[in-house]
């Protein structure tokens, strides 16, 4: 199974039959673990979520214009290893979600970016706790 990180819009109404969930989970055959922080009333704090997605084929997520995918590489990979086009795409996705990129350089890793995203969503959470089959 392939596993990658994605930033996905949150869909749903919060009802039991239409729970809030990452849009990524609506694509067939996708398993996910996601960070979806909420307000005191239970509604989503943000309109987007960080997802660790798993599937035999993740092209459906890559083909969804509303979902931003991380490059298919280990989290230890430095940003300098990717083309400028890939870096710019990821940077745009994070800037659009007000993720603090202060101090991020070409020597930073994908993990550093994931940590910044988690800090933006809920700094009490830990991406290392997320896992899917």
């Amino acid at each position: 199974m392939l596993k990658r990180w994605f930033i996905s819009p949150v869909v749903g109404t919060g009802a039991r039959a239409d729970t809030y969930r990452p849009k990524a989970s609506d694509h067939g055959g996708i398993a996910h673990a996601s960070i979806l922080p909420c307000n005191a009333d239970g509604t989503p704090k943000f309109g987007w979520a960080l997802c660790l997605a798993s599937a035999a084929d993740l092209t459906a997520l890559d083909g969804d214009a509303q979902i931003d995918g991380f490059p298919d590489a280990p989290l230890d990979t430095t940003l300098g290893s990717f083309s400028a086009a890939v870096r710019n795409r990821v940077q745009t996705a994070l800037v659009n979600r007000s993720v603090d990129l202060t101090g991020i350089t070409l020597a930073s890793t994908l993990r550093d970016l994931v940590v910044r995203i988690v800090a933006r969503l809920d700094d009490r959470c830990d991406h290392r706790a997320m896992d899917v089959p």
Partner: protein
Amino acid sequence: MTILASDSGAGSDANPIGGNWATIAGLSAMRRASNSIRGSNASNDNGARWTGVTFPDDQWSAVAVGALGTGTGGPSARIASGATTLYMCDRAATNQLILYRALNGVWTQLASTTSDTYTEGDVHECRCVGTTISAWRSGVQRLSATDANIASGSAGLGAYLESTVLTNWQAGDFASGATSLPPRIHPITRLIMAGH
């Protein structure tokens, strides 16, 4: 892991289930029927929390889930007393295992498997350790998510609709540090021991 509370499901039929169980706020009652625990409402969410003990914040809740039907169900943890607030490991009618957070009646899917193969009587478990919320099936971790919105509460179980058959519920803490559940008595053996 220490068992702090348990209910095999065996006993006289009762609706609501009563005893040390209290209906989760905002949900319909669970009932005891045919030596199992089931929902009471055929068109709604049902759930109960165990009131016989104060659970630590780090807790687990596990229950054997019966044959796949139209309903869903599974163990819940960190259940609030006055609101529909909880974590739940739900075996959905689509054969997915789904980890939910409900906060003040607002439901959010934190994690889910794809369609999977389940056996009647599989033990599903919801574990809460700090901000790590995980779903287990028969001693194997299937999902792990991170969430910091519910810090404490009681253990229990729930069912969507009334068709899901739940037996051999147990809940406890991680005081001993062990990572696997203690051996269980098979429900049939338990019924024989109970004279049924």
